[in-house]
Each structure stands twice: as structure tokens, then as C-alpha cells.
């Protein structure tokens, strides 16, 4: 985002209105916003790498739990039906609606997984002052996953489904649903501690 100019100033262009800004390098916790349209220019985070790596490792563990353990159990007239996070995807494919199956698979499992793994792949070696192979495209992919990983929306869909079924049957939440909920929080926290500019700068500094 920046080109160094004299006297330790940075030149930054606003992403949303293209206005050029000349700013002092930020201190930890400081934020710069565009003076014309108000978009965020840069937010510098304290200990960004360590915090983000810790939160992402936690997310990875929760992600595995959310996929391995039962998501929810449904009881009606003595019949019990256990579902996993991926059961809905399988059901869509079984009914020939592969478009929706792929969509739910991508939004609830694939993109979150890519995001977590991509983040660790880039951040852990950088923290040890090594630049991993293809670091730039991988980190660009991580940013793209942001839009398409929809676990938060998915959880709200779960809540609506549960409310719809609550009168009909008994629903018992499984380990996976708690892990999934916690995963949303740890990934959101990882996003808020991540400082993409620090990552790009570090990549640039390493050969």
C-alpha cells in the first residue's frame, strides 16, 4: 500500500475513492481513515503475528471437532436421527441438487478450511523469518475466502431451523455445534488481530 517518501512518511491510496494520503507510520493500535470518503486505510495491530497464529491454531482444532463430532440429534416418536455438519451437503447431492450441495460445502467447510490452512501456511514461516513458497498468491487467496466462508450465516440458519422444529420434535445439540459456534468467534478474533499490511511488508523484506 505504501511507497516510502522522504522523512519517514508513507503514501497510501484509498481503496474506495483513490485519494492519495501522506501519513506517518502508525503506532500499535492506531487507525488511519480516508479523509474524503471515510474508508479504513490501515489499522496497525499489536503483536499481530503471535495473536493471529494462536487464534488460528485454536480455530483449526475447533474446525476438526466441528467436522468429526455429531452436530445435532433429532428425536421424534422414539426415532432418533443424528446429523453431522456435512449431512446437509450429502442430502443435497442425494437429491440431485449438487449446485446447492456444492454451495453449502464451500461456504461451511471448504472456504473456512482454506482460510485457516492458508493463514497458518503464510504466518508461521513468516514469524520464523522464512518466506514460504508461493506466499503471495496463498495470502491473496486467504483474503478472498473472507467473503465466501459463511459460518456465521450458517449458524443463524441453524438457529432458524431449530426454532422451526422445536414444536415438532426434540433436538439435542452435539459437540460439533458448540465447536462450530466457538470457531466463528476465534476466526473473527483472528481476523481482527491480523494486520495484512504487516504481512505484506514482512514478505517484501524476506527474499
Amino acid at each position: 500500500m505504501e511507497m516510502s517518501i522522504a522523512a519517514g512518511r508513507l503514501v497510501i491510496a484509498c481503496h474506495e475513492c483513490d485519494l492519495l494520503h501522506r501519513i506517518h507510520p502508525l503506532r500499535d493500535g492506531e487507525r488511519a481513515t480516508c479523509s474524503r470518503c471515510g474508508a479504513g486505510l490501515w489499522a496497525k495491530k499489536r503483536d499481530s503475528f503471535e495473536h493471529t497464529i494462536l487464534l488460528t491454531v485454536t480455530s483449526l482444532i475447533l474446525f476438526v471437532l466441528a467436522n468429526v463430532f455429531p452436530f445435532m440429534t433429532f428425536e421424534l416418536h422414539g426415532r432418533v436421527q443424528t446429523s453431522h455438519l456435512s449431512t446437509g451437503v450429502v442430502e443435497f447431492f442425494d437429491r440431485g441438487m449438487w449446485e446447492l450441495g456444492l454451495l453449502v460445502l464451500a461456504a461451511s467447510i471448504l472456504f473456512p478450511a482454506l482460510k485457516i490452512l492458508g493463514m497458518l501456511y503464510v504466518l508461521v514461516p513468516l514469524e520464523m523469518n522464512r518466506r514460504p513458497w508461493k506466499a503471495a498468491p496463498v495470502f491473496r487467496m486467504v483474503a478472498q475466502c473472507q467473503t465466501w466462508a459463511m459460518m456465521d450465516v450458517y449458524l443463524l440458519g441453524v438457529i432458524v431451523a431449530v426454532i422451526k422444529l422445536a414444536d415438532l420434535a426434540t433436538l439435542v445439540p452435539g459437540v460439533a455445534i458448540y465447536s462450530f459456534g466457538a470457531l466463528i468467534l476465534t476466526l473473527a478474533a483472528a481476523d481482527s488481530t491480523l494486520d495484512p499490511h504487516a504481512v505484506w511488508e514482512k514478505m517484501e523484506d524476506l527474499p
Partner: protein
Amino acid sequence: MRSSYVTAAQASLISCHACHQLSRIPAKRTHGEAICPRCEAHIHLRKPNSLSRTWALLIAAYILYIPANLLPVMTVISFGQGEADTILSGVKELIHAGMLPIALVVFFASIVVPVTKLVVLTYLLLSVQYRSQWRPRERTVLYRITEVVGRWSMIDIFMISILIALVKLEAVATIEPGMGAISFAAVVIITMFAAMGFDPRLIWDNMKEKR
């Protein structure tokens, strides 16, 4: 900050969309794409064909919005009898069941958000094409909100995926997803791409120099 505004484009600089690095506009104006020196992403002064791409996606979304609302998103089959639900009837059902707060959430996410998104993107495109000078900052904020809020419309699709995973007691009750769900999901995805294709910097490029 300054007496006059200078944009990156006016200073012959391209700001990279992925990593924000500024680079000089290549001297040779070839059709080959320029590459960001830092992150190797393709860089452009403005998003390529922003207006026509956004229009095309938006029109596709308008067309698909019709079957998305008319066709059933799912059918609940209980003891051999089927009851089809559209997006709107699902909301009505929640209201009748006395679940007003969640009915409001679903109404907002599945009806208000997609409609508003279509209208807002249409307005933004027209405002750029007619070189509107009106409230550029508010229009940029409108764009920012549109881009962020769109994904929440997926609630209904995810709800169906949970329902079909849980309710599969052959004789007693099963749930079948309908074609409306595919159309609706397509509307949401296409409008997300439409929002990504729009370049808010075009709003500002039209502004006549003031102050």
C-alpha cells in the same frame, strides 16, 4: 489536509487491490496486464469493465429473482401430504407460530436485503453513468454496506440444508428442497459478484474539482 484532492490515478499511480502497494502506471500502454511488484496480483487503474460487468450480473439477478420468489424453496412432506413453502410463506409461517423476532431476522435477510441490494446497485450504476455530483461520500458508504451485508441472505439456504439433514423419517416427515432454493442461491451469489465488480472509485472520478 490539503487544499486540493489528488488521486492515485492523477498521480499516475495504480493501487493494488490485494496488497495496496502503489506502483507507476506502466509506460507502455500494452494490453498485457500489469502485475503488482509486491504480491504478483493483476493490477488495474480501475476494475476492468466495471459498469458493463455489474450491469450484466445485476440484470441476471433481477431475472432470477422472479423464480426465486415464485417457486417453492422446500416442500414439507408429512404423512404423505406435501406443503410447499416459498421464501415469503416461510416468513409468514414463522409469524403465525408466534416467533416474531426470528421472523423479522429472516424477513430482513431473505427479502429486505436482496431487494435493497438490487435497488442500491442499480442506483449506484445509474448515478455513475449520469455523472451524479450528489453526496459521493454517502454513496460510497451505501456501497460498502451493500458489499458486506449481502452474504446474510444465505440464511434460508443453510436452514434448508439443516432441515433436510435432520428431518428424514420416510413415512412421518421428510423435506424436499425445491427449485426456488437454487434460483434464490443464484440471486445471492450473482449479486455478490455484481457488488464486487462495481468500482466505488468511479463515483469519485466524476466529481468536479471543488474546494
